[in-house]
């Protein structure tokens, strides 16, 4: 597989770019934030987004989607990193669409996939239970109750959980076994608390107290959710890495432009070698991140069970690169970089969230070591 995009992929990326720059530039996020919008994203924009087909990127054509792959989902995610547009794309169109297409029953697919492609529903995925991403630690239990289950536990950092109609919940069904369940947001015993995050995107904390679900709520095979969850997370990680790349690219472009325009000591500050070298190093970081992210997306698309090392390499590297890009972005802009008026700070905030999401640089370096046998 070559590490360049094909013509169709380039066209997709270009059309997403012109759509987002036209309808939802960074000012769009700023407006929602300043209005303290309760949803945190614009449902009208989300429908327009769906009108372009983007929300159905991973939904098979038989269910009204584009039937494309994880590489294409990554390209859309990357463009969302440039404009910071809040949408339920990651929760609903990537994670939920992938896991339901991959492992959902025919009834689940018929009910949810067309609705996802049409932006008629929001589906959120609930995995994390502690402040750091530790997917091995799932304490939420699902006890058998006749043919169904009773769920007890709590979840946090559930993206778009505050407006989700349906939740995908990972719960323990045995000492060594996990199962994924579809839970209706209105289910008795389920409490959802909206959390507004630093980047003005929204997530939720869930509390599950004796929440009853039927056997039809199981995604895939009972007790086999662990492997499915790891693949689902790897899809999410690769797509988040692509968004981190988009954030880093955008900050870098804006920063290099500023180095050329800002004058001090009667010359553009971009003439100073102290800044030039740091910018050139960042350029290298961005290029190698671009390469490893594309490679990871391709690997996940080909076979999500065999992409673990590449995904962790890509997510770890993307976190490091984006972190460096936003820090240099603020520093090289100087005082104005600290002001809320300038967009650079918004990119720093988004990068912070995306780094924590599904494991930061350290988590994934640790996974690389473990998988590498050391």
């Amino acid at each position, binding site marked *: 597989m*070559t*590490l*360049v995009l094909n013509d169709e992929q380039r066209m997709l990326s270009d059309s997403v770019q012109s759509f987002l720059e036209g309808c939802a530039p960074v000012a769009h996020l700023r407006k929602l934030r300043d209005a303290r919008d309760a949803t945190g994203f614009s449902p009208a924009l989300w429908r327009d987004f769906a009108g372009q087909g983007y929300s159905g990127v991973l939904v098979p054509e038989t269910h009204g989607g584009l039937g494309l792959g994880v590489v294409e989902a990554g390209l859309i995610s990357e463009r969302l990193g440039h404009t910071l547009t809040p949408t339920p794309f990651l929760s609903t169109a990537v994670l939920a669409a992938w896991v339901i297409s991959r492992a959902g029953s025919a009834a689940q697919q018929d009910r949810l996939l067309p609705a996802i492609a049409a932006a008629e529903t929001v589906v959120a995925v609930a995995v994390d239970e502690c402040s750091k991403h530790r997917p091995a630690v799932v304490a939420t239990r699902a006890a058998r109750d006749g043919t169904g289950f009773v769920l007890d536990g709590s979840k946090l950092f559930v993206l778009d959980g505050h407006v989700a109609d349906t939740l995908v919940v990972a719960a323990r069904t045995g000492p060594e076994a996990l199962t994924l369940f579809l839970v209706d947001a209105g289910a008795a015993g389920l409490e959802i608390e909206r959390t507004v995050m630093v980047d003005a995107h929204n997530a939720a904390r869930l509390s599950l107290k004796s929440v009853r679900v039927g056997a039809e709520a199981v995604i895939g095979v009972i007790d086999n959710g662990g492997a499915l969850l790891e693949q689902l997370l790897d899809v999410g990680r690769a797509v988040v890495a692509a968004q981190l790349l988009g954030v880093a690219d955008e900050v870098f472009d804006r920063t*290099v432009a500023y*180095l*050329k325009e800002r004058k001090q000591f009667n*010359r*553009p500050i*971009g*003439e100073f*070698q102290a*800044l*030039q*070298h740091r*910018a*050139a*190093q960042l*350029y*290298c970081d961005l*290029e*190698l*991140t*671009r*390469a*490893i992210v*594309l*490679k990871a997306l391709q690997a996940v698309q080909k076979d999500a069970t065999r992409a673990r*090392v*590449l995904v*962790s*390499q*890509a997510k*770890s*590297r993307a976190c*490091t690169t984006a972190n460096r890009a936003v820090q240099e972005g603020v520093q090289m802009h100087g005082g104005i970089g600290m002001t809320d008026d300038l967009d650079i700070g918004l990119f720093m905030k988004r990068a912070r969230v995306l780094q924590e999401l599904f494991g930061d*640089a*350290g988590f*994934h*370096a*640790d996974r*690389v*070591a*473990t998988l*590498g*046998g*050391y």
Partner: protein
Amino acid sequence: MSELEAFRADTRAWLEENCPEEMRRPVVKDADMCWGGRNPRFQSEAQRVWLERMTKRGWTVPAWPRAYGGGGLGKEEAAVLKQEMNALGCRLPLYSFGIWMLAPVLLKYGSEEQRLEHLPKIARGEIRWCQGYSEPNAGSDLASLATRAELVDDHFVVNGQKVWTSYADESDWIFCLVRTDSARKQAGISFLLFDMGTPGVTTRPTLLISGKSPFCETFFDDVKVPGRNLVGELHGGWSIAKYLLMHEREMISGIGSAVADKSAGQLAVESVGVDAQGRLLDLSLRSQVASFEVDEAAFAAWLQMTADRARRGEGHPAVASGLKYYGAELNKRRWELLAASGGADALEWEGSHSKDGEVTRTWLRSKGNSIEGGTSEVQLNVVAKHILGLPGA
């Protein structure tokens, strides 16, 4: 089966039949590399045979035209050959500054007569070349070089000194930057080729901190060089010099990505050991090695992406500077980690246990990676100016 797939099948069969078993083991020490030359030193009969067989097919330089000793393969076929050689683990039959550095220059700037004279000998590994660039007072500021070449009738008379001439003492010919006009800096430089056996050429090895070295100082004392050995225009050597440097950077940037026998993590396990969970006993080292392996994988992907872009005629030529910078720094990191993993073992300078301080010496040698072929700082200048378009760089 497409033509290309048929070529792949034939190539694989030929390699399996003709590449000696010994030439399919990874290159780990200097003697594993065959450099050819008038007085070639073959490590083994297998090494000699491998060069001979590949030369016959023109596959030391598969994509060159046959008239120049190449294999006449198209880009796609050459890529297939490379893939099949990698798949079998075949060593390069010939390591050659002639192939990597001089040939691109001759193909772009040389006369047809020069190409026909030199390229076939390079392709067959008959003449080994060295590079006369740096001087005692011309390092990063290469264009300040002072070695003079005066045109007297139909020949040049060369006087001066070069430093860091890799393998000068084992090379047959030199490609050399000389000053032909002292009034102009860049515009007073010419690109000359001459035989290292010419009277007036002497070499002296340079000992490095690693205790050994392929480098020499090279002295020119009234060396007579035929006028036809000038490449390109008189005083037109600087653009040739830069073009060659670009190829040199591409070559060096591959160092960090060379498929090593074992990963840094595996090597650390062997020397440090693991706990009951299989984790490296030194947790700080473990996280450093893991970060390194992440960057190593990302750099390898960057090299692949650059090659894929080049095949589509895309990409910025100055990317070679970025790759050279990153590859050199990465290789230094690798050897810092291997030295740290080795602990007291990696302090040995002599002794059979450490193969005479192999790790120790390689760790020291790697420090030169970010100096030779243009320092890291110079590479960053190039990226800042030519790719990012920053002012005044």
